[in-house]
């Protein structure tokens, strides 16, 4: 018996060849450049710059960020665009140099938490067995516990940056998991998932190639959310001694140290706060611009 095989389409295509008009033949070849809205470019580019400054700002600072160059809380002056902090150090130099560890830690934390949550959520939403329900229950349990307690425990048990990652995972992954599980459970019934299943694609492949891309918007928003949590935790745990040891600059530490001098030199607090907010915002914007595509938000 004749079976359809690899040659099928060659021949079929061959037959079709003759009748394909020249016009579409012209359109062969390279894919048209993906078109994105200008806002995406603007925000994507800006985010890139911000990240670059956060990671490599150290080299831009012209003062040693640890050097005492002015009286404590000296206000804005020439050479000191943001004034000085509690010890009289240049706030601008510290802001420029103080983003790297925080950025790396919170990025790592957000990625870990999101990845775990997404993987868990896909699995829980897909496998509707007892184990899946148990994992969902465990997620609920984590949600019910005060994050403060979990974070404290993480700080005690683990070294600094790892504690932030653990805290973000404990506090953030359960929500990701539940949200992704809901989306996955709903996606089980879509035509494209059914089509993949009837092609004999295994569950894992269907999850990765069909379900995950279809919910990329959800996942990327979630990543932004985890990043926020990580930054928050990093800032909160800073009070407990997390973060680079003084006198190394760190945005979160600067917030804590300089808040008391808000009345004397507000710039010392505002600058790291803005840096922190812009960092989180730009990472979120960047991740958005990466998944933005035609026909999807």
């Amino acid at each position, binding site marked *: 018996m004749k079976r359809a095989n690899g040659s099928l389409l060659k021949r079929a295509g061959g037959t079709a060849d003759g009748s394909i008009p020249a016009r579409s033949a012209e359109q062969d070849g390279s894919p048209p450049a993906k078109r994105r809205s200008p806002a995406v470019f603007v925000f994507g580019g800006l985010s890139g710059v911000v990240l670059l400054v956060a990671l490599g700002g150290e080299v831009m600072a012209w003062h040693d960020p640890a050097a005492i160059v002015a009286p404590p809380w000296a206000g804005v002056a020439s050479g000191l665009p943001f004034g000085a902090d509690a010890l009289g150090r240049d706030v601008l130099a510290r802001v420029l140099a103080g983003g790297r560890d925080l950025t790396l830690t919170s990025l790592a934390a957000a990625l870990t938490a999101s990845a775990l949550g997404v993987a868990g959520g896909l699995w829980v939403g897909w496998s509707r067995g007892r184990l899946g329900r148990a994992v969902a229950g465990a997620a609920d349990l984590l949600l019910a516990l005060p994050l403060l307690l979990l974070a404290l425990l993480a700080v005690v048990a683990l070294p600094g940056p790892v504690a932030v990652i653990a805290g973000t995972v404990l506090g953030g992954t359960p929500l990701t998991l539940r949200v992704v599980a809901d989306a996955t459970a709903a996606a089980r019934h879509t035509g494209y998932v059914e089509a993949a299943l009837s092609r004999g694609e295994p569950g894992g492949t269907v999850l990765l190639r069909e379900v995950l891309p279809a919910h990329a918007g959800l996942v990327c928003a979630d990543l932004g959310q985890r990043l926020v949590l990580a930054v928050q935790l990093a800032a909160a745990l800073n009070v407990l001694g997390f973060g680079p040891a003084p*006198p190394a600059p760190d945005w979160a530490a600067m917030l804590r140290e300089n808040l008391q001098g808000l*009345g004397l030199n507000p710039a010392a607090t505002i600058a790291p706060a803005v840096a922190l907010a812009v960092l989180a915002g730009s990472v979120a914007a960047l991740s958005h611009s990466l998944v933005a595509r035609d026909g999807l938000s």
Partner: protein
Amino acid sequence: APGTASTGTASQPVATDIVRYAAPGSPSNAVTDPHGLLPGESDVVRMALTYDVLTVPGADGATKPRLATEWRPDTTLTRWRITIRGDATFSDGRQVKAADALFSLRRMGKKEAENFGRMAMFDLDASKAIDDTTFELTTRKPYAEVGKALEGATFVVPEGSDDFGKPVPGSGPFRPTNKGGAQAVVYERNDTWWGPKPPAKTIEVRAVPDPQARAQALLSGQVDLAGGVPATLAKQQEGNSAVRLLRRPGATLYPLVMRMDTKPFDDLRVREAVRLALDRQQLLDTVFLGYGEVGNDLITPKDPTSPPNLAQPTRDLAQARKLMADAGLAGGVELTLHTTTAYPGMDSAATLISQQLAEIGMRVKVAVEPADTYFSAVYARKPFYLSYLGGIHFLDVVRVTLTPDSPTNETAWKDRTWSADLDRALAEPDDAKRRGLLGDLQVRLREQGGYAIWALSDRLDLAKAGLSGVPEGIGFASAFIDQVSLDG
């Protein structure tokens, strides 16, 4: 809540017979037992309003009578006869008797773990009540400073009281009411109090943990007195005539602790080098914004027994480097300095100290530790850290940290002759001579010991203009606010 002053936003007519005090402390640890741990200043204030104490510290540091009118030793200085006033009554109408006082001291003795062994010098089992107004206190060794030992926290409760879950009658100048809930405790004047009649009819005490919030509460007219405000805020208010800044010199110090049984601090030359390398003026100006005075390494400079007119050490890097070289550390040394955020400026002090010590080759890594466990995990356990002392007198410091076998002998101070000399000083009945001996001991400690006292900070309170009667003096002295009044 930080920010600048905004007077008048919440101005309500203030009845002059009520004084509202925002005290450092947390409403969540508001204890009711006067004899255990008093975690916050607000707790001491509340107890001092409710209960009478035997003696109080005066503004100059000297002991003043309160419920106890007289304390008189026998010739051995081991048996003391304490006389208390006969006209004090508890709020339930009972007279305050010597047995009540002795009972209270014994209760404190039992709770030594919670009150740092305040009664450790007394043999309370051997002590006895003699009549309604006198009792005999026995000390374990000759001890000439019993008046001082009874200062401050010896709150007298009725004999037999043990359940402090419910209000226990007190004989103090004020009586707590049950108004206020968790937010504040409202005290009404005790019109039958034996002492000078308090001018205020009502005092409201609020425990406010955040120093900025205390200051803002005063600036916005929500309280009349704010205890312990941050220096940054005080600096902003210097020109403000609506408020008065009260400064109590030498209230707080953050001693730099060097453990003498641990390398490299086992070498006196290294300790000396550290003391010489500190730029005390810079530390004072930066950490306390100049609100205070430079330290000269005396551990209790405001104690009346502290010797005055000692030479002020100044920064001498050359000498310090030489000492380091002599100690074989010309190539420098790696160290970790522990600090915490529990008290304002403690972390910047450590950072600054590490930078100053870098100039004599000490590579100091600063470790900021959680505030919760600083006093159980770092205090008296690490060899190099910033400690905290707030207005305690010399003998208290000695009892806690300078007794060779004390678990909290943080500098590992084990000078046998010094300890023997201390016993001898305490057995000296003559006040002037004893003062000389004690002063001498402090000087020896200053030179040989493991402390570097780089600056003393003022205690800063903000008061509404027109508030008077705020006690002077540091430590326990500042808790007795019964005479505050708002005129006008």
